[in-house]
């Protein structure tokens, strides 16, 4: 260390070097209002084009406005801020736009279903069946279809979720041993194949196997079996993913305490992965709750209440919607939309309940 104070340069020199350093660090910058301004400008321009040229309608105007916005903002930024900032702004614009585009159908569906569904939805609609109500007449309801859907989906979930979770446990926890690896690969392969089988084919299979071959009658239970086949691969895959991200450390910690493997899986691994497993299972339930084709083949439809899933045709919300929409009258279309709203609500309530339960039993935060 030198004891002498550093020689300070002459004032002019210092100002000059400060300025050079500042220039090296700083760069041009668009004002904070640049993005909103570009947005307003492109909207105004798009509406202008709307008047004078071929651009037509709200959607067309919005697309043109978006393109103009990207061009104006990127060009402006390129001129003032340089290439890197311009590319950054363009990429940001793209990401937000794709997000909005992906979100738009979801919002549109929810809005349409709520707005149109509320027209026919009241307590009577929930608590009466369609027995003796002609398609043209107002009134009637989805009581019989709610019973059918809850029973069919309930049975399918009761069979499918445990089967799916146990398959995933086998694949993740037990199949690592060398001698069962080939079986595991086969199971994994067929789960993938099952994911790809169209639901109508599954309906046909249950119809052939149970109704034609075994001589069972068409029933809600047959429908539930078809739905089970559809949900198993979804449950297996999601549970498998969740089990795989449970750290190895936790299993080892449990083994080192002298806890047997099955208890480790039951009390340590499954609770740790519970949140994700529940989400996956509920997504599978949501998927099968809306299936229509297999129901038409396995339980058909009825306008009457049938509490017994093991005998006779049973209604369900998807087939109800399909039937009412096909009838084509104003009253039946309103009923179809109201039933769609009921279906979405049921799935949402199931999902939220499951998430709340998982929150209070899973990983503590």
């Amino acid at each position: 260390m030198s004891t002498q104070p550093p020689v300070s340069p002459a004032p002019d020199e210092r100002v000059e070097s400060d300025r050079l350093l500042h220039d090296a660090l700083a760069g041009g910058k668009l004002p904070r209002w640049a993005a909103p301004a570009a947005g307003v400008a492109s909207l105004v321009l798009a509406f202008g084009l709307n008047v004078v040229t071929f651009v037509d309608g709200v959607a067309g105007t919005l697309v043109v406005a978006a393109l103009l916005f990207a061009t104006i903002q990127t060009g402006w930024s390129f001129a003032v801020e340089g290439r890197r900032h311009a590319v950054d702004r363009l990429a940001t614009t793209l990401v937000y736009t794709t997000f909005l585009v992906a979100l738009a159908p979801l919002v549109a569906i929810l809005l349409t279903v709520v707005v149109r569904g509320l027209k026919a939805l009241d307590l009577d609609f929930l608590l009466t069946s369609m027995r003796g109500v002609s398609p043209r007449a107002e009134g009637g309801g989805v009581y019989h279809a709610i019973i059918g859907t809850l029973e069919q989906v309930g049975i399918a979930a009761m069979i499918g979720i445990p089967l799916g979770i146990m398959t995933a446990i086998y694949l993740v926890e037990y199949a690592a041993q060398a001698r069962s690896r080939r079986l595991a690969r086969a199971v994994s392969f067929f789960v993938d194949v099952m994911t790809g089988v169209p639901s109508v084919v599954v309906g046909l299979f249950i119809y052939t196997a149970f109704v034609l071959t075994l001589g069972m009658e068409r029933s809600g239970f047959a429908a539930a079996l078809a739905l089970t086949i559809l949900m198993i691969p979804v449950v297996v895959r999601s549970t498998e993913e969740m089990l795989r991200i449970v750290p190895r450390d936790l299993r080892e910690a449990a083994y080192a305490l002298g806890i047997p493997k099955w208890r480790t899986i039951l009390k340590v691994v499954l609770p740790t992965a519970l949140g994700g497993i529940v989400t996956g299972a509920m997504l599978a339930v949501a998927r099968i709750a809306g299936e229509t084709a297999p129901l038409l083949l396995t339980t058909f439809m009825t306008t009457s209440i049938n509490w017994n899933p093991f005998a006779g045709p049973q209604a369900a919300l998807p087939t109800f919607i399909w039937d009412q929409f096909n009838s084509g009258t104003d009253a039946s279309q309103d009923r179809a939309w109201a039933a769609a709203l009921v279906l979405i609500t049921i799935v949402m309530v199931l999902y939220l309940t499951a998430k709340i339960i998982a929150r209070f039993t899973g990983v503590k935060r």
Partner: protein
Amino acid sequence: MAKRIDVADLDIYYGAFKAVEDVSLSVEPRSVTAFIGPSGCGKSTVLRSLNRMHEVIPGAYVDGNVLLDGQDIYASDVDPVNVRRTIGMVFQRPNPFPTMSIYENVIAGLRLEGGKRRKGEMDDVVEKSLRGANLWEEVKDRLSRPGSGLSGGQQQRLCIARAIAVEPQVLLMDEPCSALDPISTLAIEDLIEELKERFTIVIVTHNMQQAARVSDTTGFFNLSGVGKPGRLVEMAPTETMFSTPTQQATEDYISGRFG
């Protein structure tokens, strides 16, 4: 209560790969034995074979004898689950169960091994184990909070409490301080000194000062060459080991002139 361990002619394999060769050593009851050596020399593997934890990895097996007070833990009628109840283990990274509270973490071993116990008895075990791990004063007012909310050093002491709650005879520690700061490390080292009164302790460490501070006996492991199995080069009382080692390799490693 604490028991001795005798290892004779132990070879450890991962499938076709021989990871450790020809290890023979003895661990005295109520003592601390440290394993030191460079990374990948098999010291953790040897440690894990002492309570059959290495078998968790598919394809792993041993050839040779590990005797716990004369009883072969690899005999065909021995259940590895029972071995691990007798010989507990603490890992490198603190790993409390994230779904459980501090209280539940401590009694996890007792509850999950299936025995039924009264609530009062459990409370006693929790207090005794947490006191044994020098953690009681810090957590006694928040036993129902999640274990993952503690600091790293506290989590590691929670894991030690969890391990000693099942009353093992031997406690294996696989680099228990390598993820901790110096103050937490000191806390754990003090704890090892106290635990020695009740348990036989074997510790793997990368920190030679730590081995010198806490252990009575030290074993030095090394690879016999690239791709060759690791072996126990030398084992001696810690003082002798750090002052007058008999092997050149040991002296090079301890004095930092390794390689």
